[in-house]
């Protein structure tokens, strides 16, 4: 909401649900990563110290599964929110304010690469969500499905081997590990660099915790959305800022 009475020119980008989900996902992700790698790399002394610290491998396994369930519940929450957005708030799933990919994002990607290589002077006029924010969101979503499925195969191998040949468990082991490596390396290096080390947002992009940004940030980071907000209003069921 354009809050002109209390604070000047503050724009809401994330509602409380999203902020809460992000915190829970962050903590649960760290939990599964630490406990999972202490099993995968158990030949390393530091992993064994960590397991000892948790009180034994059985506790570590329990914690891993607990955090995994919490993570998947967050995914379910997001799916429910998308349905709420579409049906209750009558938002457009492929509109400019949606987290879903549009054809325009391809153009934005090309222009952004041009900016990085020095061909364009400025980054493209991003809308509500930039192409890499959408990419992050959907890769996490799909990743959770793979990790969940393979994880559940490894959790109940006796049950699943009733319906699938035994080597599916071996496949699940390989995929679970490789995808974990990808997710953790991506989040630990790339996600943190983009959100903490990038000069535009250094020392950190706190919007996912506070939910709001200033007018200048809106104009710089999401010029497309900024322009449509300043354009003459069209009647619509959703408020300007309430989006996916």
């Amino acid at each position, binding site marked *: 909401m354009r809050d002109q009475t209390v604070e000047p020119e503050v724009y809401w980008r994330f509602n409380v649900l999203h902020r809460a989900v992000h915190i829970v996902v962050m903590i649960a992700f760290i939990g599964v990563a630490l406990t999972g790698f202490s099993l995968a790399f158990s030949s390393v002394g530091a992993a064994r110290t960590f397991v000892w610290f948790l009180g*034994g491998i059985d506790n570590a396994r329990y914690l891993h599964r607990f955090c995994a369930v919490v993570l998947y519940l967050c995914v379910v929450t997001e799916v429910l929110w998308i349905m709420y957005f579409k049906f209750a708030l009558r938002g457009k799933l492929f509109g400019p304010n949606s987290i879903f990919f549009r054809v325009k994002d391809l153009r934005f990607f090309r222009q952004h690469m041009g900016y990085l290589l020095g061909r364009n002077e400025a980054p493209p006029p991003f809308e509500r969500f930039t192409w890499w924010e959408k990419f992050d969101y959907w890769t996490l979503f799909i990743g959770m499905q793979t990790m969940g499925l393979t994880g559940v195969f490894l959790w109940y191998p*006796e049950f699943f081997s009733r319906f699938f040949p035994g080597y599916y468990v071996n496949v699940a082991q390989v995929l679970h590990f490789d995808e974990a490596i990808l997710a953790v390396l991506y989040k630990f290096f790339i996600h943190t660099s983009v959100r903490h080390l990038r000069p535009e947002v250094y020392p950190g992009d706190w919007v996912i915790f506070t939910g709001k940004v200033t007018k200048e940030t809106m104009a710089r980071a999401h010029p497309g959305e900024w322009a449509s907000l300043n354009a003459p209003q069209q009647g619509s069921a959703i408020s300007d800022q309430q989006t996916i």
Partner: protein
Amino acid sequence: MDRLRLILRRLNTAKRTRLLRSCRGLIIAALLVLPIPVQPAWSADPTPSSSWFVDMNRFLKSAHGSLTCERCHVELTAQGKVHPNREDPTAMKKVVVRSYDYQRCASCHPEAYKRFLEGEHAKELAKQKQAQSEGIDQPPEKLAPTCGDCHSSHYVQSKRSRVELGTHMIETCGKCHKPQQASYLRDIHGRMGIFLEKKASAYCTDCHGAHTCESLKDKNKALEACRRCHRDATLQFAGIVIHTGKEDISRKNPEKQASMAFVGTIKPIAQTMTIILLVFFALQTFVWILRELHRKLRGR
């Protein structure tokens, strides 16, 4: 007088309390820390146990420490025997674990000896003895084991814990079954049992039998072994591959070959995708940061 005594007593208590409080931490720490180096550390054989020199310190601490040399090495001290016999041309060339008569072990270890005779190692040993008498010799890495190949009679210890036994076991079995040792340590059972020291894990003999040492190529036999812990397992469960190394998959097991071929195609695809994604985004982020730094330095 009484008042003085009371005062003194109170002073003493206070002083004593202060003294104990300051030393308490140290004493507790000492009690916790000191027993650690004092415990006899279990260790593997550092030198070949078939060395001509016997380390008496370790021997006397071993399970056989109360036995005399002659009890087991009867033939060397028998009447009319010369030791060392420099006239005998084969003396320096005999492999001791091949020439010692291990039936002597059966006098104290009858159950183990009987189970060994029923198992795969004994059968292979008998076959090789037969082949040797016909003049066919085995390369050293293919020799079937005798008791002495796995057990050090001079330095074996008793009353070891399950984790200690298991950890020693993989080194012993791993001397010949190296690929299986490596693939076991990559598998969840190896990680749990050896690195994470979980008592209720499966070590070599838990699945393959103690002294019987049987192969689990037959899925029904494998299922029996799995069911010892995974009580709800079905026959397809026994199709889960534990020893996944390339050398573990014998050509006589087409089903296992097919399974691992399938896994073997998925793995490189997953790894390549991971690397491509990470490298692309790492480079992109790096150049992005440089570009924004440059912009900032230019005052834009």
